[in-house]
């Protein structure tokens, strides 16, 4: 039985196609503003890579902040549940999950394979990928390099502001004062780790603790968090796709509960063409993104 999970995050769109036991295809590509069209594009690519068609996929679960914009999905599930399922599948001993996404960060508590509590950051970019992106941009370094660079610091700079816009200025001031980029980045990571830690702390941290999402790829952040929390974190081999994986797992679970007839009816309801604002001549706007 083929199933798929698609996770449209604020920054990256991820997809997992599975035959029910193993992953056949997984992809991650930047999210653009036009989710519907994007969903088709990544799905088309993923299907092509394992020589499948939409009709052969029994059940598709969409998750992530753009989950409602996936016309061909059979069901929408929040990324919180999907991350939990993905991590629980990979690491059954994990009790606490930290997900650092592009524009939010979350903590999830798991007990006996069930989600018992969760928390999301509150309308502030601190502790999210967006924060690091802005800082990397301002400092003129590559986003994927900042973690490693921060680990080379011996004397982390003091960054007090956790507002991205003001931290940006602070970083520039420190830079102008002669602090090295490494030290500034270390300061930035420290400040964010402390912010994330106090958010997760509300859930009562229990071992094992896993970190997922784009933030898990930032080694500097992972180390800074480990230092705060006091023990090592579990990092999945491909932290970006845990949400999509969880979605695929849910898809399989749901599909097995349905009769072939029900599955067929579901599939018939899928919309396989993106009718969107951008395709609608009546709306007549010239925005190109």
């Amino acid at each position, binding site marked *: 039985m083929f199933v798929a999970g698609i996770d449209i995050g604020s920054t990256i769109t991820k997809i997992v196609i599975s035959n029910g036991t193993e992953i056949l295809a997984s992809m991650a590509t930047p999210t653009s503003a036009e989710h519907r069209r994007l969903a088709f594009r990544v799905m088309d690519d993923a299907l092509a890579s394992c020589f499948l068609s939409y009709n052969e996929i029994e059940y598709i679960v969409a998750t992530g902040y753009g989950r409602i914009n996936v016309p061909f999905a059979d069901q929408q599930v929040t990324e919180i549940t999907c991350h939990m399922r993905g991590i629980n599948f990979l690491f059954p001993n994990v009790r606490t999950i930290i997900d650092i996404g592009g524009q939010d960060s979350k903590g999830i508590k798991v007990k006996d394979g069930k989600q018992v509590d969760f928390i999301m950051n509150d309308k502030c970019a601190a502790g999210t990928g967006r924060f690091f992106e802005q800082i990397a941009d301002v400092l003129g370094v590559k986003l994927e390099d900042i973690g490693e660079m921060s680990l080379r610091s011996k004397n982390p700079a*003091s960054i*007090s*502001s*956790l507002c991205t816009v003001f931290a940006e200025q*602070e970083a520039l*001031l420190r830079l102008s*004062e002669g602090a090295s980029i490494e030290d500034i980045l270390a300061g930035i990571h420290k400040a964010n780790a*402390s912010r994330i*830690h*106090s958010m*997760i*702390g*509300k859930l009562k941290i229990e071992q094992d603790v896993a970190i997922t999402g784009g933030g898990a790829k930032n080694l500097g952040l992972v180390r800074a968090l480990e230092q705060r929390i006091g023990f090592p974190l579990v990092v999945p081999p491909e932290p970006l796709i845990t949400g999509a994986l969880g979605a695929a797992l849910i898809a399989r679970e749901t599909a097995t509960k349905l009769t072939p007839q029900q599955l067929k009816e579901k599939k018939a309801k899928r919309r396989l063409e993106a009718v969107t604002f951008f395709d609608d001549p009546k709306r007549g706007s010239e925005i190109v993104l």
Partner: protein
Amino acid sequence: MEKDNSVKTMKSAKTLKTAREAGYFGKKMLTDAIKAQEEGHPIGWSMVSWWQGDFIAKAMGMHLVYPENYGAFCAAVRQAEPYLEIADSEGFPNNLCGYARNCLGFAKSLRDNNYVIPEGAPGGGLARPVLLLASGTACDARYKWFQSLGRYLNDVPVWNLEMPQSGVKEYYLKDNKEKNLRFVVKELRNFVSFMENLLKRKLDHDKLKVMLDQALKTLNIAWQVDLLRRAVPSPMVSQDFWSVMIPHFYLPDDPEAYSFYERVYAEVKERVDNGIGAIPNEKYRMMFSELPPWHSIGFFDELSKRYGIAMVMESWNYHAPTPMPEEELDGVTDPLEIIARLTYHKWMEHNEVAREFDTSPGFFNAAYLKWAKEYRADGFFAHPLMSCRPATYTLMHTRNSLEEKLKVPGVVVPGDIIDLRVFNADEGFSKVEAFVETMDHYRDLRKQAGMAW
């Protein structure tokens, strides 16, 4: 330019000799409590209740410590952050009162250490209490916070003292004041029976009377120091006041506090007599409201140095009240009633000004309207607090009233009592630098309007 960090830790250079001695009283409160506990005396954690509960508890042999003061203390030595973080992860919203979060974090660390004060607690920590004495005056935090301490001080009872805070108009309704006082006295009696029950001992009325007499004397002399501060140039600025306020505010019944104020008075008087200002080149006089950034008091030294600004008077609620009119205490012998009248007077004493200026609430903004003229204020320094709404709610209104009614302009520099992140000294300096021109302008306006200063 000084670096951000160094500004934040700027300690204040106190100008008065006596102000430099005042630190003794803060430490005394904490260490006396720990000693008292070792000797088996009951400890109470008390909110500032403007002397409503303090003397009664103390007269019954209870030793009081003040978590609010402890919050300011932790902030001043920059050791509040770890406690704030604990409170945060306990689930308390991080916009709650900074003092409260500091205390909740400390209480959790106390419980987790089996009620033995953890090593390294600032100032030796707060001894474990048998009573949490809350207050309904001024703000909700001061009973909600103690109520939520139940999580960590499992079986310690909370008592909440009542104090009416009527609107200005309501205050003047016929007989209302006496009715309010009757309510307070009744509640104080309830408090006494609660305490007698808790401590299994009787209130010693004579002892209470002695403490009260001493306290009224101390408050009186502290008030006289305030009167001296009307002098130009200002003999004593806020940086000094924030140090010397501790004894009268927390320990007015302590004879040591009284003799301390005698010395403060003498020192300030000498300055006034000889025309000596607390700061060199006083050019502008400002009133400060509300609680200061305890971690950065040195900011105000810098304002003096750069712009010749003297902070001549500060939040009314930390000052000793004007002495009560004699007829107010005529024939009153019940110490509980004297206490009720004292605290009520402290809270309502500016209502007359509020009525004159047609502004409400009297208790939070009217004092500045009176003082602007008495202290010849050129400006109003408003310090909105990120984590204290009650102290911040009326600031804008006070500033608006001062500007409209007395042509005294205000400057707003946001910060916090504890949280270091909000206060930006550089931003503050640049606002004040421009504000200096504004004060000049309003001086001209007051002159044109024929006002006295």
